[in-house]
């Protein structure tokens, strides 16, 4: 006889319940992937079931596997009261191995029935593929089965409620055999485990567990006594705000001298109390929020024992606590007669106690009951562990979120501050550069005028002084322009003006600018052009590329001693122009290579004194290269020389800027910075020319006023300066005709008048001039007015 079924553990069920059970399985078996087999599916006769079982239902599915075996109960020798209803001995198992064994057994007896054999084989396959991940579903289904069986026992107990049955009533007996079933125990356990797995909501886990365990143990009350409750923890706050305690009633032993520590005790007391409770009925008083710290604190070793996992079973407190009147008193208050205690140890701390109470009478606790409570407590400990970890995780997550939000806000504020600082800086630079440029332009313009003055002889010394003034002014202006340029690029206000140009010509021209300087310093300049004719035309911003080359060449010439060489190499690789400036100069130590392209970085204090410059040149160069999406790199050896390599990718030509320099004449875009000057007074014209060219304008000076209209149309200047006192004609007539003429109607006109009287101003305005300037020319006034007209024109 196969011993795969425990013949001693079985259920006794009425027929109706058995049928109900089978129906439940049949329903489940109707699912798509489930297989159901009953004794009626077997053609063999007699049935080859083990242990005289006559009926069975076997369900296999990917989620749950159940086997029910049953046989009719024999009336004789059965302790159950006889009933009109037929009763069955039912064995139920969910155990994989047992079911597999049963299948094997069936197969052994079914050699001929190929159809049934096929079903059995599929069932075996299904059983093999069953995974433990389906435990929760299996648990749920088992619970359903249990509830069907439990209802049967309840029905039975109500039917059999007879007074003649003594202490062990039929109901109790039913409970007894139900309780002793390891299957039900393990099912309840698995249910608790399932709950723990499914939920992170600790209060719900504890609540349901307390209720189910109480029901299963059939105790009057089941509670969780919790230690060290954080006053603001959610578990504590779900209950009533503060712990009730019976301290007052058991206060007697408290010594008055302990008053100092009273507050501490008070605090401690409120941190230990009953947090969960399940009662058999409302007749049992509630002990929720009760605290027994006083007595408990007297027994600190008790806590330590609990921590080690000690369980306590007390059948009658009156006997056990004879010598502890305080505790006994307390238990009386709580109506506790017998109790069963299992510790809940979470994260190596005594988190609480799981306590079963019997209120009205003593109770003899069974060993398995204690074991069961211990198991449940252990599983609760896992749940608490998880919940605490989850809580910590949540807390950390929240803290992290707050930190991130805080940091984001800080960064945002910092960004705003930086932006406004940058804006202020840009505005300051713009203002400063204007304020610096105007007087400088005067210095440069006036010194240039004096140098070229056609009358009067200057002594050599005077000439040298003027030259120095002029050159210093120009150098200063360059520095200021560089600073302005850098700040403009930084603020993103620079747009490349892309056009196609001849690489070789641009390279030659850039190199040629340094010819004189190189000759003076005794440096040999060389151009190494490796640009095929068909690749000579290259789309980029020629002005910026010139700037890049000039900056690099300027440095090369500056840092190369006499007798040295500066070599400019140009080649085109695919769609990339490679510009290389090589010198035999002093070189740059490798440690300082990364400082090279940073703003305001002078490599050495000594070098600073020896060589002029703001340290902006290379930074500006890098920015210009970056604007082109290119790269700049350097290799250098101290005392040998440096090689700067710039790689510029071909830019995309925008339609309006992409004109080519063919012979064909194309209408020109009006130059923003071209000014036409109509002036027949040589000295005035010279000063204006010098000032305006020093301020970077292109000036075309026409002496004779008669052909202004045609020339203005041809030259398309942005502004025209007209002397109102031209010998050849009336200035206001010229202005009027300029205004009438479509091509020049929009041009800005500045009229020069002898004296700045309101009448003269009115005449000029009426004729159509935008502004007036009085003679003799005050350089600053001229520059301010022209600058104002230019910006007004740029805005239109």
């Amino acid at each position, binding site marked *: 006889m196969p011993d795969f079924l425990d013949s001693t553990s079985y259920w006794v069920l009425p027929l109706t319940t058995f049928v109900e059970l089978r129906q439940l399985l049949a329903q489940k078996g109707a699912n798509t992937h489930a297989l159901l087999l009953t004794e009626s599916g077997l053609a063999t006769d007699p049935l080859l079931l083990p242990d005289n079982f006559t009926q069975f239902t076997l369900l296999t599915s990917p989620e749950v596997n159940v086997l029910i075996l049953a046989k009719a109960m024999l009336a004789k020798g059965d302790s159950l009261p006889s009933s009109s209803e037929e009763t069955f001995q039912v064995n139920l198992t969910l155990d994989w191995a047992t079911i597999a064994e049963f299948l094997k057994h069936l197969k052994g007896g079914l050699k001929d029935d190929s159809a049934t054999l096929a079903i059995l084989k599929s069932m075996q396959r299904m059983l093999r593929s069953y995974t433990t991940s389906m435990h929760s579903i299996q648990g749920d289904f088992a619970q359903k089965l249990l509830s069907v069986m439990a209802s049967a026992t309840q029905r039975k107990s109500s039917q059999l409620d007879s007074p003649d049955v003594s202490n062990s009533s039929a109901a109790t007996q039913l409970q007894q055999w139900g309780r002793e079933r390891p299957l039900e125990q393990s099912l309840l356990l698995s249910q608790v485990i399932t709950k723990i797995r499914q939920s992170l909501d600790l209060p719900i886990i504890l609540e349901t567990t307390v209720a189910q365990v109480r029901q299963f143990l059939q105790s009057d009350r089941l509670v969780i006594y919790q230690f060290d409750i954080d006053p603001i923890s959610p578990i504590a706050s779900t209950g009533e705000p503060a712990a009730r305690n019976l301290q007052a009633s058991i206060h007697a032993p408290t010594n008055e001298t302990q008053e100092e520590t009273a507050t501490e005790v008070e605090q401690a007391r409120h941190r230990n109390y009953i947090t969960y409770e399940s009662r058999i009925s409302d007749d049992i008083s509630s002990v929720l929020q009760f605290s027994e710290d006083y007595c408990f604190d007297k027994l600190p070793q008790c806590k330590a024992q609990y921590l080690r996992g000690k369980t306590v079973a007390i059948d009658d407190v009156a006997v056990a606590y004879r010598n502890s009147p305080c505790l006994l008193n307390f238990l009386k208050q709580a109506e506790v007669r017998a109790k069963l205690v299992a510790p809940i140890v979470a994260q190596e701390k005594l988190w609480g106690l799981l306590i079963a109470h019997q209120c009205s009478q003593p109770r003899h606790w069974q060993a398995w009951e204690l074991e069961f409570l211990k198991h449940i407590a252990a599983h609760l400990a896992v749940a608490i562990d998880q919940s605490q970890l989850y809580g910590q995780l949540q807390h950390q997550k929240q803290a992290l979120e707050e930190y991130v939000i805080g940091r984001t806000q800080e960064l945002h504020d910092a960004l705003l501050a930086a932006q406004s600082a940058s804006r202020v800086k840009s505005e300051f630079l713009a203002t400063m550069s204007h304020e610096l440029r105007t007087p400088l332009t005067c210095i440069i313009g006036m010194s*240039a005028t004096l140098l070229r003055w056609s009358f009067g002889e200057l002594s050599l010394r005077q000439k040298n002084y003027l030259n120095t003034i002029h050159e210093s002014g120009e*150098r200063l202006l*360059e520095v200021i322009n560089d600073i302005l340029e850098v700040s403009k690029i930084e603020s993103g206000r620079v747009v490349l003006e892309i056009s196609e140009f001849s690489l070789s010509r641009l390279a*030659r021209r850039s190199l040629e600018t340094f010819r004189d300087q190189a000759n003076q310093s005794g440096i040999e300049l060389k*151009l190494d052009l490796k640009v095929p004719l068909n690749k000579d035309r290259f789309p980029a911003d020629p002005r910026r590329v010139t700037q890049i080359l000039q900056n690099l060449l*300027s440095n090369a010439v500056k840092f190369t001693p006499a007798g040295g060489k500066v070599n400019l190499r140009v080649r085109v690789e695919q769609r990339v122009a490679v510009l290389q400036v090589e010198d035999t100069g002093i070189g740059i130590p490798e440690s300082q290579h990364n400082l090279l392209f940073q703003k305001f970085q002078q490599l050495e204090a000594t070098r600073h004194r020896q060589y002029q410059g703001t340290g902006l040149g290379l930074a500006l160069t890098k920015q210009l290269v970056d604007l082109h999406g290119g790269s700049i790199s350097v290799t250098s050896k101290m005392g040998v020389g440096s090689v700067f390599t710039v790689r510029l990718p071909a830019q995309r030509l925008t339609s309006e800027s992409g004109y080519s*320099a063919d012979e064909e004449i194309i209408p020109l875009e009006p130059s923003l910075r071209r000014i036409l000057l109509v002036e027949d007074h040589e000295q005035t*014209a010279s000063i204006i020319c010098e000032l305006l060219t*020093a301020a970077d304008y292109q000036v075309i000076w026409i*002496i004779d006023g008669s052909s202004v209209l045609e020339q203005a149309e041809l030259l398309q200047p942005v502004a025209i300066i007209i002397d109102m006192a031209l010998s050849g004609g009336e200035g206001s007539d010229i202005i009027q005709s300029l205004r009438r003429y479509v091509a020049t109607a929009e041009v800005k006109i500045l009229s020069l008048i002898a004296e700045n009287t309101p009448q003269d101003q009115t005449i000029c305005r009426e004729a159509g001039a935008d502004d007036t300037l009085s003679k003799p020319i005050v350089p600053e006034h001229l520059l301010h007015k022209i600058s104002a007209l230019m910006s007004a024109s740029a805005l239109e």
Partner: protein
Amino acid sequence: MSSSKETYILKLYVAGNTPNSLRALKTLNNILEREFQGVYALKVIDVLKNPQLAEEDKILATPTLAKILPPPVRKIIGDLSDREKVLIGLDLLYDELHEDEI
């Protein structure tokens, strides 16, 4: 530091408002627009109106373009239709002249 840019001073001598004079101005304008990236001051002189200026500079024919600055002074005679000639005259095409040296 970028090299000090040169300021050009040019003089264009024309005789009256003739098509020839206008063409010369137009061509020069074009060249300056495209080939020239610096700063310049161009003095347009009508020799008929200011004969003394032409005399001072010893201008014998029009149109004539004179580059005063930067030195050396160069004069280009004709209607400037020979672009290359103008560029060389303006020292904008010196590179080609130096080509052999390099």
